């Protein structure tokens, strides 16, 4: 399996990370060497093996759905890159 420039562009789109053409070439080389390394797993027969999805195989505990932190809107909005007292602001999405 080789990761060509077209695939790199496709992954970059899916990842929402813009990549210029110079970087795409280098990235394709890096990804190819990493995938060559990863593909060692193909040697193993895992047909009958159950996937391990969580190492802490405990049942999730239930808790009451209660509000614990109150009146933190101002503090939270302080971290937003575009300043506004009441809302998060994004570029216009509807004309």
């Amino acid at each position, binding site marked *: 399996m080789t990761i060509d420039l077209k695939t790199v562009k496709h992954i970059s789109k899916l990842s*929402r990370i813009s990549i210029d053409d110079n970087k795409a070439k280098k990235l394709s080389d890096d990804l190819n060497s990493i995938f060559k390394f990863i593909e060692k797993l193909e040697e193993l027969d895992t047909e009958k093996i159950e996937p391990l999805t969580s190492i802490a195989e405990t049942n999730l505990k239930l808790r009451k759905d209660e509000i614990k932190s109150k009146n933190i809107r101002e503090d939270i909005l302080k*971290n937003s890159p575009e300043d506004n007292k009441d809302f998060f602001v994004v570029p*216009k999405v509807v004309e």
Partner: protein
Amino acid sequence: MSNIIDLKLFELVEKIKKKEISSNEVTKAFIDRSQKSKKLNSYITENFENALQKAKQFDEKPDFNKKLPGIPLAVKDLFCTKNIRTTAGSKILENFFPTYESTVTQNILDEGGIIIGKLNCDEFAMGSSNETSFFGNVQNPISENLVPGGSSGGSSSALAAKLTPATIGTDTGGSIRQPASFTGTVGLKPTYGSCSRYGIVAFASSLDQAGPMTQNVKDSALMLEVISSYDNKDSTSVDFKRGQYLKDLNENIKGKKIGIPKQYRVDGMPKEIDELWKKGMKIIEDNGGEIIEINLPNTNYALPTYYIVAPAEASSNLARYDGVKYGFRSKGKNLIDMYEKTRSEGFGDEVKRRIMIGTYVLSSGYYDAYYLKAQKVRRLIKNDFDQAYKKVDAILTPSTPSSAFKIGEKTNDPVSMYLNDIFTVPINLAGLPAISIPAGHDKSGYPLGLQVIGKAFDEQNILNIAYSIEKNINFKNNINDWWIN
């Protein structure tokens, strides 16, 4: 009191409790040395003034029942600290001030600890040399232009240079144990579920675990007691009875069966590391332990598995950095353009590489071939350990396949950088506890570490074995303060 910084954490605690020294004196001593040590670049954010105030408050109303009474500590900048900037080593969080405290740092505060600053790390903990940090390389106090390991590189550097009496890091594939090994310090990765992940900037949620980094094993036991707790804010936190790790620490390893996995004898490993390993085995035998050869047949598949599972989880965890609610934002023509530019400019190359690997292995048509396959191999790796632990109580290996390398030596080849974690990654995949302790030097005088791996939730056992090895080895770090003019 010029020697405060030379005292061990447990000695500082005793002296403060006996009122021989004040929290203010201790805090000031570590801050003074930190200010003289900027050349190491261990810190991202200093909290010195605030810390000195807290120390004075402690001295006015001391509580000597606390486990860290008025003790100053700098912590890895991956832990959210309320109102103290938390960057995860990334430009995208350059100006992020958490509105809440991580459980692990809250536990430190609750036991009387004082946060003096936030320590440098690889960006989002992705790296093995601290060279991916947006805030620059960190120097290893052992020698100039040597990496301190990673991702907890600021932590290992600050600890070895005595800028903090102890610290905490996080370990997803070796990020506590490898930097500890590179700096001649002790690093413990607890069992998955022992320390809460709440408030730790997430990298790979099924692998991430916080743990202590200290000058010695006794301090490690003390710190583990402080930071390990059940937490209902982390759904994978495990509600088990935590030990009194410090009180129960002892060097008696008589009758312990220690496994030696032959698969860890890798090609090209320096002779010194093999000799060190043998030295460790001899110490165990001399102290009444038994050495047993074991088989971990799937060891060679651990790194490829890790480089599917970790990036897959990272690509999902890092989707939240979109320039909307917090962090860096770039200007774009429209919403999508803003997302793409924000993430392109806000993340560094290694982080982007891993997000893209993760996105690819989870994408339609490739999920079964990569991600599902890796989860199956992860089961095989865990089964290897389960089988081995039917015969042995713990496992002894080297911590790393080499000593610390020069800054810039491995940055051009991601795969050679990944190979650093060959002995540490399998333990994260299996969720087990492991401790790295300094055990010798290579021919350049750089430290080398041994790793003791335990059964799940058997931290006391590996602390005791490490304690016994430590007493017999009597390791000394050669640090000559070259960075202080």
